[in-house]
């Protein structure tokens, strides 16, 4: 990575009012890229799981300063909000002098800390359309209760009709270069495998060892937190 020149290469966007604010729209929510985690926590209209997510980012000092946009664009595989945007089918509104476009979360993270924005684009806002009927779930595993970097972070969304899952979205962070969806697990849930769907985890993720944890732990924990979640809503 090229080191930025601290005098020339940095633009201070803190304070750009067009990038801030959390608003409900006709379809859902528009979360300004500069919204801090504290602002997300205070936006009680947002889905509780998203507020929980905000509450686990660093601690208060970080939440008062860290932004939704920074988390997304930074694109750290351990970025806690990224799986949530994936399961919420969020759209990222980006702008440049050429105009404004929207990038679906599923197409945003293209590699380790790489994304689909081009150099002169700015992330303006995140758009989500949560359904109140959906079960939205967030779980961070980071060993410490605050100021912790995830070893595994899970976002999940489940839609149940007549006691059967009709839509399932799972995404995980900290287990690959980008946050990933769990297609095999999702298919197994829809196929009616219930909590056992979690046993397909190894087909969807191949975590690595690093200084924070081991691949074995990450795989085990990923399986277990998904199983726990499914047991709660679909029964054992």
């Amino acid at each position: 990575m090229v080191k930025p020149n601290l005098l020339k290469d940095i633009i201070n966007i803190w304070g750009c009012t067009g990038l801030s604010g959390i608003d409900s729209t006709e379809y859902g929510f528009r979360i300004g890229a500069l919204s801090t985690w504290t602002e997300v926590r205070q936006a009680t209209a947002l889905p509780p799981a998203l507020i929980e997510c905000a509450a686990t980012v660093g601690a208060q000092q970080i939440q008062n300063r860290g932004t939704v946009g920074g988390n997304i664009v930074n694109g750290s595989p351990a970025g806690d909000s990224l799986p949530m945007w994936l399961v919420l089918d969020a759209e990222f509104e980006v702008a440049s002098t050429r105009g404004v476009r929207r990038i679906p979360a599923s197409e945003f993270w293209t590699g380790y800390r790489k994304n689909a924005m081009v150099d002169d684009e700015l992330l303006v806002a995140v758009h989500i359309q949560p359904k109140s009927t959906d079960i939205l779930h967030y779980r961070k595993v980071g060993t410490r209760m605050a100021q912790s970097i995830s070893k595994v972070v899970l976002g999940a969304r489940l839609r149940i009709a007549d006691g059967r899952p009709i839509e399932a979205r799972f995404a995980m962070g900290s287990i690959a270069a980008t946050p990933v969806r769990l297609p095999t697990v999702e298919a197994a849930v829809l196929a009616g495998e219930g909590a056992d769907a979690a046993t397909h985890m190894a087909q969807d993720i191949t975590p690595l060892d690093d200084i924070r944890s081991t691949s074995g732990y990450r795989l085990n924990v990923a399986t277990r937190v998904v199983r726990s979640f499914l047991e709660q809503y679909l029964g054992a």
Partner: protein
Amino acid sequence: MTQFSLNGHTTSVDAPPMTRLIDVLREQLRLTGTKEGCGEGECGACTVLIDGLPVNACMIPVVQAEGTQILTVEGLAEDERLHPIQTAFINYGAAQCGICTPGFVVAAKALLDAQPNPSRTEVREALAGNLCRCTGYQKIIDAVVEALGGQP
């Protein structure tokens, strides 16, 4: 030139825009009450309030201080009169080596302004960004709960 209000006084500093706020405070303005324990946003020893919100001064480029109101530990006591949080820290033995103390009292001040009578769990949550290696936190929580009007 960056201008802000520091502990109630209008202050201007001449520093490159990406200079860390903590360096401006400690080196340029010689307000050394704000401590550096890690320089990476983890320990909270450098906590100051910007517009009433606790933030880590080691993570803030001074350019983002422009036009804000900053409160550091030096701004808590009124002349000789200690702030009740400071008094409680003394009475409860919440400061041992003291290196974390400025960060804790400043973070507690923000909590006090936002929410009087917090529960112990709420106090713990508000102070989770401040590390202390001496006290085991028990006396700090006691002091803050008492100073904020609760029953420790």
